[in-house]
């Protein structure tokens, strides 16, 4: 054993001991397999680093230049002709063949698509989301509804849902007298309820005024006789006959989801459709929250 090897081993030993001291000081548990493997790696690095250095230092001391010189040289600095090692050459050929296969078959036939993966993940997530909140309680739905409302609805309806003084529907009450009159006079066919289109002029003159005032007043007091015309579709209590026609008293899930689906142009302006932007659970949550805005 010559001095060089002894020196290399000594350096490696110092490094390993130093590592062990650090391990000890940091209270790293070497019985843990990951820590043990990492320690093994550290030992290997220390040994290899000094071993390889020792080998090349020894080679530099004894090696003589030999081989066939290439023709070209730069200012007297020449280059030996080194044949490509056969292992290297074969693996290079292998990659060429693989590239041909990948170009013609591998990629086109089995193309990975990042956006496809994203779409699948979103689909799976939405499914999980729906399943998780299938039987969510009122309070959860209300909280979920609030956060959806603040992002999607608040820019038009205001953060408090009051419609920003007439710029959009005011959710603190159901309908104003002007709105009811507008619907009675113009009919309503945009929401696609099972009852179908409401024709204009179901009531007129004082009857219409009475109905509008009564509905706008929260349907309190004496029911106007002319409301019978409305009741045939909207129900005697105005609650919409279990989803057959819009609910006139509150924003129930059926009404909210129909408006989200179709959008609506009314006396105030136009609301665009929010189709496909919310899952059924989110629509339910939104309806829950909007109902809670009532004065």
């Amino acid at each position, binding site marked *: 054993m010559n001095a060089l090897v002894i020196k290399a081993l000594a350096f490696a030993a110092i490094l390993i001991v130093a590592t062990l001291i650090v391990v000890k000081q940091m209270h790293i548990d070497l019985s843990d397999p990951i820590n043990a493997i990492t320690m093994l790696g550290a030992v290997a690095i220390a040994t290899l680093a000094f071993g390889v250095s020792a080998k090349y230092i020894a080679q530099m001391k004894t090696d003589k230049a030999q081989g066939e010189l290439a023709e070209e040289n730069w200012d007297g600095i020449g280059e030996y002709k080194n044949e490509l090692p056969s292992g290297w050459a074969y693996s290079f050929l292998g990659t060429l063949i693989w590239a041909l296969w990948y170009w013609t078959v591998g990629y086109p036939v089995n193309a990975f698509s990042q956006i496809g993966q994203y779409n699948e993940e979103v689909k799976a997530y939405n499914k999980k989301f729906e399943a998780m909140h299938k039987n969510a309680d009122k309070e959860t739905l209300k909280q979920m509804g609030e956060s959806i409302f603040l992002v999607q609805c608040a820019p038009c309806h*205001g953060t408090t849902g009051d419609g920003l003084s007439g710029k959009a529907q005011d959710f603190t009450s159901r309908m104003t007298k002007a709105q009811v009159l507008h619907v009675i006079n113009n009919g309503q066919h945009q929401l696609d309820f099972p009852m179908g289109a409401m024709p204009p002029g179901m009531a007129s003159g004082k009857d219409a005024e009475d109905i509008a005032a009564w509905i706008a007043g929260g349907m309190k007091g004496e029911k106007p006789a002319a409301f019978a015309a409305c009741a045939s579709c909207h129900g005697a209590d105005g609650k919409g006959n279990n989803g057959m026609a819009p609910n006139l008293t509150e924003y129930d899930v059926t009404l909210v989801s129909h408006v989200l689906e179709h959008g609506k142009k009314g006396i105030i302006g136009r609301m665009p459709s929010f189709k496909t932007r919310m899952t059924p659970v989110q629509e339910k949550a939104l309806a829950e929250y909007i109902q809670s805005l009532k004065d």
Partner: protein
Amino acid sequence: MFHWLEKRPFFFAVGVFLVIAFAGLIEILPNFAEASRPVEGLRPYTVLELAGKEVYKKDNCIACHSQLIRPFKAETDRYGQYSLSGEYAYDRPFLWGSKRTGPDLHRVGNYRTTDWHENHMWEPSSVVPGSIMPAYKHQFKNIADLETAYAEAVTVKNVFNVPYGDDIKPGKAAWEAYKPKVLAEAKKIAADMKNKDVKDAVAAGKVPEVVALIAYLNSLGSSRYEAKK
């Protein structure tokens, strides 16, 4: 062969360039050709929308608003379907933007309407409390440059084969013949607006910038390729 190249630095450089250029071409070109194709059914911007796009550029909306929805759940939840490269096929230049001081606008036409934009451009904080966007009241007074927008349509039709109809062609006479169509589109938007000055101007055959801008904003989103259905 390689020793031959090594002795000739110039040809070596040429060889390196060729190899890298070839690799670049086969990497980039097919994808580029695919991506620049319009999505199915996409219609080009109308002349009024092009005029609005000019207003969008002129008033530098791009400084605070992006037009690119990335495929992240948080973004698609808020703004809708992520953007597809084919949707920008008729955008010259595209207005992706790089900073969102305000929200993304690539699908704003899907969830905002003419009346909302009118309130918002007049006084942003009236509809979005706490908004730091400045008011753009001058757009209700300034008249949009429809002729330049028309010229742009003619140019992109002739140079890039953008599929406009036969009635978009060079010449003052052709523009005069086409103008009523643009005004009719502007009237439809003005009908949904409340501002008296705007309504009067449109009735008198002039289109305020805000009308063109609203036409452009309403066109952002899926309406430009779902209208065919």
